[in-house]
């Protein structure tokens, strides 16, 4: 193995990955029948809670498991590959983190997160109706942010759902509850956005990877013209492109997670790496969703088939915490500002030339 002065490696704890693979592999086998509308699976949530997986990244001192983002990203990917209807991203890496930076207590009950507008209304709140309390990150006025942990009893929740059929509700706060929140620096809002973007990226890539498995199984089993369709070169090429884009999305996500772990969220290199991941994963999703449905054929478009439990969340999540286009725009601004002489430094370090040499 190459020495560390040549290569430094970041990988999730293999024991954690083995546990996750086992838990979610079994969930996929035993899961309740599929429905168009997705509800929180409270049994699964309790099981994950018992295993310490709902507070994976929180410090052990505050009741968490003290794992890093390497393990968190593995959890999010593997859970998404099993289409597990549980708010892991919202509860732990976003909600529990916000409470922690605000110095607010966490009773362990299910949380989701949102950024309500000036009027105190937040649209598209994932799992809003399921949460015991909603952690709000609120911009009271430009540059002044507060974090408030508001119990469900003080919220008006209007049920909505996203394209995946998951709860994605409109939540109305009493502005007084938001104004009573703890003041936090603006950097918290920036980190929240990056954490959310990276969490969504990890989830989407987990869905892409499982979609490749579904595609391969189908291409090997489905027989037409007397042979498995995977024997046809046209199908092979379609599958190769699906697999290649998925590999690109995985590499982008791993690089962003490693960067966040090594450099922290405030480093501009982390912004660049997360943007690269959002862009690559988002565009890969276009190819994979299209190609996977093409290979699996009409059966893949039915409610009974597994494929839509992956492709619908992929489409729902790739545009959250910044649309694919918005992140492309961000990268464009960085690249244009770097220009001819700074672009290579940006590509290799994620930083502007003057930041890289500092």
């Amino acid at each position, binding site marked *: *193995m*190459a*020495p*560390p*002065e*040549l*290569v*430094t*490696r*970041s*990988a999730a704890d293999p024991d954690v990955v083995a546990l996750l693979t086992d838990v979610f592999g079994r969930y996929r086998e035993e899961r309740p029948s599929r429905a168009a509308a997705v509800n929180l699976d409270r049994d699964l949530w309790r099981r994950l809670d018992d295993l310490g997986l709902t507070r994976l990244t929180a410090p052990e001192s505050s009741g968490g498991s003290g794992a890093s983002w390497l393990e968190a990203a593995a959890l999010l990917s593997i859970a998404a590959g099993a289409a597990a209807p549980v708010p892991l991203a919202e509860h732990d890496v976003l909600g529990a983190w916000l409470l922690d930076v605000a110095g607010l207590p966490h009773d362990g009950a299910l949380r989701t997160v949102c950024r309500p507008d000036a009027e105190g209304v937040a649209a598209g709140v994932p799992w809003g109706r399921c949460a015991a309390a909603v952690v709000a990150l609120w911009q009271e006025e430009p540059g002044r942010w507060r974090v408030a942990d508001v119990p469900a009893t003080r919220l008006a929740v209007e049920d909505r759902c996203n394209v995946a059929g998951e709860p994605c509700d409109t939540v109305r706060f009493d502005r007084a509850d938001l104004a009573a929140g703890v003041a936090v620096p603006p950097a918290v809002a920036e980190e929240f956005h990056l954490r959310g973007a990276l969490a969504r990226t990890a989830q989407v890539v987990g869905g892409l990877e499982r979609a490749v*498995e579904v595609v*391969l199984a189908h*291409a*090997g089993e489905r027989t037409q013209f007397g042979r498995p369709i*995977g*024997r046809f*070169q046209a*199908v*092979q*090429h379609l*599958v*190769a*492109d699906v*697999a*290649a*884009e998925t*590999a*690109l999305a*995985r*590499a*982008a996500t*791993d*690089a962003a997670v*490693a960067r966040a772990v*090594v450099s922290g969220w405030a480093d501009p290199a982390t912004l*660049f790496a997360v*943007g*690269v991941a959002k*862009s*690559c994963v988002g*565009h890969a999703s276009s190819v994979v969703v299209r190609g996977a449905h093409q290979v699996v054929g009409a059966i893949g478009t039915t409610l009974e088939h597994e494929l839509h439990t992956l492709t619908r969340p992929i489409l729902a999540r790739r545009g959250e915490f910044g649309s694919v*286009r918005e*992140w*492309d*725009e*961000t*990268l*464009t*601004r*960085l*690249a*244009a500002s*770097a*220009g*001819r*002489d700074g*672009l*290579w430094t940006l*590509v290799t370090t994620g930083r502007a030339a003057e930041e890289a040499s500092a």
Partner: protein
Amino acid sequence: MSLVPAAGAEGPALTALRAEVRRFLADQLDAGAFVPHVDTWLTGWDVAFTRALADRGWLGMVIPKEYGGQGRTFLERFVVTEELLAAGAPVAAHWIAERQIGPSLLKYGTEEQKHAFLPGISRGEIFFGIGMSEPDSGSDLASVRTRAERVDGGWRLTGTKVWTSGAHHADAFFALARSAPLDPARRHDGLSQFIVDLHAPEVHIRPIVSMGGDHHFNEVHLDGVFIPDDRVLGTVGDGWRQVTSELGYERSGPERFLSTYRLLAAAASAMGEGRLPHDAGLGRHVARLAVLRHMSFAVSMALEEHAEADTAAALVKVLGTIGEGDIADYVDTLTGGGLPDDEELTRLLRAAVLQRPGFTLRGGTNEVLRGVVARGLGLR
């Protein structure tokens, strides 16, 4: 299931090497030693520049010191080649030797062959080509018809090789030839590799001029050229395995996604200076490039550790060559064929658009490579 091994991050020694190469390139640019261009690993033949690299110890990088090389790792070579390509430096003269001739000689060559060629390669004094394709053998390499006949003390080669880049400048090439009659049931058998002296009188080299008028490719006609036994590479009859076992080196290096990098950089400047409208496509291409680097580096790590990486290499080459071609097309559609006030961008764009069709052909077409990926996925 993971088709591409996990990448690591560059450690401090590699970052330091990168900075050293960057300083060297800045000095060379200041001295006017080269003008940055696209696709320079095919088109930029510059012996003086190659020798300057040799002087710095950046040639023969993975060749052991006992054979005149630098005894460094594939990862260090990755960093050096990546910096050279990103600078648009002229690296064609040594490219083939550095990338695949050196490693092949190390693996299959005799001691005498290693001593005869590796020191010259490492000093930038011996230049190599590669003789695989033929007029009737492109993707179907096993169909090569160049004949090797057994004669006293060696072999006599007759046939025609095409698309031999740089043959008109090079000293020698590895020719893949049929040394035993074709057995249709075992068509990969009976092939052998020979080290051919391109200066021999029975070797005739004719230019194949590319559509833009440039001369990089050649047709090499072997008119019964004698190859002594000591210029057979590896084992007679084992040519197919020897050739295909080296494809990982050839397929996934930085040249498979950086061929149009200077054009992307020029477009970034034009956008930053307001000479091009702000367009999200730039960010999208930068993102893909950034990730292709990680994937290509991961394959280099696998090669360094002697792990199997054929599928990963094929996959990276498919993605990379499409991406570098898309950059050419992107800037073309964005600018309308160039910018009147930007001579550099226009020059790079014209070349990139004309070189682009070759990106997804050379070194294994994308159609063949998708088949390799499909095999890796268990579909074939």
